């Protein structure tokens, strides 16, 4: 398609092109000479240094490190100056409003977007979006994207020689309920290889994007599945050096949520940072949002 090179927003069609040469991508590239053992040693050393710091009384870390060299792409992409403390002002104390005008109810079911049933293990992922004070974040936008059951994204830069699924796109959206709840029906994503180092594999995950009541609460993260054997090997998961913090990204299997003869259930709550706004009684339950 003919486009102004600056018009970055027209990526949609552009990205929906399956890789033409699946086998070309199969041979490990020469650039990836570092092995998992090299990377694991680096990850372990950072983990040990953190454990020592904790023992010496440092506070537990709750977010990923921006400077985490085992994820090679981060080396030139993290700020080297410390983040500057600022008190949020005006616009930052509010979030954009989303509503049912923005998102169709069917967008939360990723298994019904095509004519046929997608391949793989059908799952329900459900939970709540809460702010740092435990207040439900009502009427807000949740977006997800993920690989298919074989570990392949519908994205032209995904060269993994695993099959695309004509019945699965892997994109969903919903608006949280009055109690902050969200719910998606989807397919359990597969693990997939990437080029960070030789034999690098991402644990199965679903990308999540959420808004709070304040723009300062904006978060994009990844939800993982319990018991994944790839956790200790993955530089992205390990960029969160604290085990309790990592555990907050792992969904819990929930048999009560499992739907008989239909889908396995996983529960995952998201806690945003605290709201900095001064809340009035009326505001506390999402007057912003769906008025139309």
């Amino acid at each position: 398609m003919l486009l102004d090179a600056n018009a970055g927003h027209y990526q949609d069609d552009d990205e929906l092109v399956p890789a033409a040469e699946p086998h070309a991508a199969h041979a490990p590239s020469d650039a990836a000479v570092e092995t998992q053992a090299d990377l694991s040693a680096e990850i372990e050393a950072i983990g040990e240094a953190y454990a020592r710091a904790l023992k010496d009384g440092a506070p537990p870390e709750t977010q990923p490190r921006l400077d985490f060299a085992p994820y090679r792409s981060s080396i030139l992409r993290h700020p080297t100056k410390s983040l500057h403390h600022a008190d949020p002002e005006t616009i930052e104390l509010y979030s954009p409003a989303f509503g049912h005008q923005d998102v169709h109810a069917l967008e939360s079911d990723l298994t019904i977007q095509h004519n046929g049933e997608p391949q793989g293990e059908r799952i329900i992922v459900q939970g709540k979006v809460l702010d740092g004070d435990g207040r439900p974040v009502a009427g807000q936008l949740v977006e997800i994207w993920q690989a298919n059951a074989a570990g392949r994204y519908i994205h032209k830069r995904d060269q993994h020689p695993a099959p695309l699924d004509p019945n699965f796109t892997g994109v969903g959206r919903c608006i949280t309920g009055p109690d902050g709840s969200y719910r998606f029906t989807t397919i359990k994503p597969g693990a997939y290889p990437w080029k960070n180092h030789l034999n690098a594999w991402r644990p199965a995950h679903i990308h999540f994007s959420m808004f709070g009541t304040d723009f300062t609460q904006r978060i994009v993260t990844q939800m993982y599945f319990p018991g994944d054997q790839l956790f200790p090997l993955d530089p992205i998961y390990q960029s969160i050096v604290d085990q309790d913090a990592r555990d907050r990204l792992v969904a819990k299997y929930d048999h009560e949520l499992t739907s008989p003869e239909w889908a396995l259930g996983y529960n995952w709550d998201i806690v945003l940072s605290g709201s900095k706004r001064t809340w009035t009684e009326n505001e506390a339950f999402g007057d912003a949002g769906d008025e139309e």
Partner: protein
Amino acid sequence: MSKLIPTPGQTVGPFYGYALPFNKDNELLAPGSAGSIRLQGTVYDGAGDAIPDAILEIWQPDAEGKVVQRTGSLVRDGYTFTGWGRAAVGHSGVFTFTTVNPGPTEAGAAPFISVAVFARGLMNRLFTRIYLPENEEALAADPLLSSLDPERRSTLIARRDADGGLTWDLRLQGGNETVFLDFERVESASQ
């Protein structure tokens, strides 16, 4: 209520391109409509190279300085200004928005646009601000800008283009690294 510990962020990764962008995501109002301006810039890494896999969001008051709370950002009707937009950079690292000059939210306040940036290789989203270059007096009195040394301060102020648009580049790392903000009162442990 007890304070809960927030869920960690993670990188947006390389494959958001078929999920996060949507039709007219970067058009807070229709290009060419009355009062509309172009806001553009390039995202650079620590080597000074433009990066092709970053995605930005802006959130701003309207031209009168009012914080807008209207739905309809994802399915734009062409005339409702919602104050929020999203733009993935193109292959050359350039992003473009069509928006309005934000107004001051209080008399005498320096108008600014709030920005969240996400990228492959960036472990967690970063926040920053884009200030309008006019009104020196308001800029001088701004609490954030006045807490920065002049060199760093300039990374938050856009240039006014001849056609009335704004240009503002974002540098994730390096000599004139953009100032990124931490809004948490507790000392952040993320560094």
